[in-house]
């Protein structure tokens, strides 16, 4: 009665599941654009570097918020942890090699993510939101008070960073090295995140996001998964922070603040949560918009951004990418009906 049909694996749904991780034809596009940007806009490489760092930071947030459904308003804690790790190690001449510096920064941020996650992730919803905010505020205050080590309010500047691979110097005036270096690291991190979200682990994270109670009922160690996801995400945010510190050769409190945490959240919501490229689209849209709005209306440019966010939140819960997706869906449905 329940004998399996012979062609189970050929079922369209099974094929779709089996093929969803494959590289789409348009996926090289953002990377080609990033390389083209390097050649076309040599004067804007500083801006470009900043954009790439922001994308990486937003990707790390996407992993916890978009995939695992962990609502956090304190993700800049890990960005800051990474930035200060690299900054302090270099400033005091302990460690100035950039790539291993990233690894150390990731480890420190991951450790903070792990320990705080063990405590925070017992809670959900508003409590969780407030606790993530508190964690970040504690770190921020620590950075502010530990003036001897962190430079306090002024931060640390002229942080010395060794050349990449011992050859390519970081030059603050011509950030060519910074741009390519950050692009390379972003690419590697993206591949890692992409692999992760399409794995069974990533699938289980979406399960937790969709229905945590049911995940308990299928025998999943929910909290362990969440802590692990939070730790991985913290490490990536730490790398983003470290890149930021290395590329700019300074660290200050802005790495840790609510401003940064809220901005990255806005970017992700704008681009689309839980869909990998939302971070790219959101970061570009946010940065371009703030640039233009600031030009048009210098005193209250954030008003325009706020309005856009309200519209997105009301009418396009899945962000800009979500709008595209539903448009494509409708197009496909139309074509299917007419054929």
């Amino acid at each position: 009665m329940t004998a399996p049909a012979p062609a189970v694996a050929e079922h369209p749904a099974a094929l779709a599941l089996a093929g969803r991780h494959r590289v789409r034809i348009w996926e090289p596009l953002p990377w080609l654009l990033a390389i083209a940007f390097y050649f076309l806009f040599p004067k804007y490489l500083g801006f470009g570097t900043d954009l790439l760092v922001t994308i990486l930071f937003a990707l790390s947030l996407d992993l916890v918020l978009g995939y695992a459904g962990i609502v956090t308003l304190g993700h800049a804690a890990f960005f800051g942890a990474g930035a200060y790790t690299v900054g302090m190690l270099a400033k005091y001449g302990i460690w100035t090699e950039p790539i291993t510096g990233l690894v150390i920064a990731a480890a420190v941020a991951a450790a903070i993510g792990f320990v705080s996650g063990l405590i925070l992730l017992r809670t959900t919803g508003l409590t969780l939101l407030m606790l993530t905010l508190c964690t970040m505020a504690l770190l921020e205050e620590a950075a502010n008070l530990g003036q001897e080590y962190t430079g306090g309010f002024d931060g640390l500047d002229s942080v010395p960073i060794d050349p990449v691979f011992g050859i390519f110097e970081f030059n603050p005036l011509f950030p060519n090295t910074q741009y390519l270096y950050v692009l390379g690291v972003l690419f590697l991190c993206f591949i890692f995140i992409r692999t992760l979200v399409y794995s069974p682990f990533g699938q289980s994270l979406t399960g937790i996001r969709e229905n945590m109670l049911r995940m308990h009922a299928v025998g999943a160690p929910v909290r362990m998964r969440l802590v692990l996801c939070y730790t991985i995400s913290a490490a990536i945010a730490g790398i983003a922070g470290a890149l930021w510190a290395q590329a700019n050769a300074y660290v200050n409190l802005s790495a840790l603040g609510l401003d940064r945490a809220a901005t990255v959240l806005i970017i992700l919501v704008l681009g689309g949560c839980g869909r990998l490229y939302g971070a790219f689209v959101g970061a570009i849209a946010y940065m371009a918009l703030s640039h233009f709005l600031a030009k048009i209306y210098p005193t209250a440019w954030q008003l325009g951004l706020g309005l856009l966010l309200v519209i997105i939140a009301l009418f396009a819960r899945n962000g800009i990418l979500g709008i595209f997706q539903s448009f494509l869906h409708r197009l496909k449905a139309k074509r299917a009906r007419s054929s």
Partner: protein
Amino acid sequence: MSAPLLETRGLGRNFGALLAVHDINFRLEAGARHALIGPNGAGKTTFINLLSGVLQSSTGQVIFKGDDITEMPEAARVKLGIARTFQINRLFRGLSVLENVYIAVAERTGIAPSKLRPAGTRKNVVDEAMHMLETVKLQDAAGSLVSELPYGRQRLVEIAIALGLRSEVLLLDEPAAGVPSAETHIILDAVAGLPKHIGVLIIEHDMDVVFRFAERITVMVAGSVFTEGTPEQIRADERVRAVYLGQEAHRGAAHG
């Protein structure tokens, strides 16, 4: 006789001053097809919650194959082999039907923590999930989002997830509620197709389903076991008729 598959001794749970369930001594044998009936508010769902670990008991013990699992959390009980469905759907609504079952099968087979290989290339897991969907006649909907299915078919996803756990104890909390009567046989067929050694406990209000399915029936009233017996004994029991079946007829009249 050997130890039963699942047993409770003096099991009770109170919510403040309210004794939702008290002093329940219950045995579910291997291979049982056991129904739990009783009027609304009798504590049936609370009892299942205690068995599955959704709730912790206030008094008494839950014993699985001779081991005390009273303190064990829900997920660990699932790993031992106790699976359940919920009276109100608990599904991954934003995911496809296939993904819903995939998640359950991935947890059971232990591949869920793996991070590098794409989920879809685990052919055995995908195949098994598809097979579970065939069992509940949902293969056509495998690619749809759960939230796009009508409620009755969502109930079948609920069953498919539980089947995907391949448990030894299966607790079904009103599996047919909300399923069009023409489709309730799908659920009964799916249960009938389970390996014989699995112990199944079902809460159900539809007496048709109960008498077609059950080989043993426990009647709960006001938080404790009222009586237990074969379907014939229960059907013939005047007291059951009074407290339950009569009320059922009354309910039916009120609904009709």
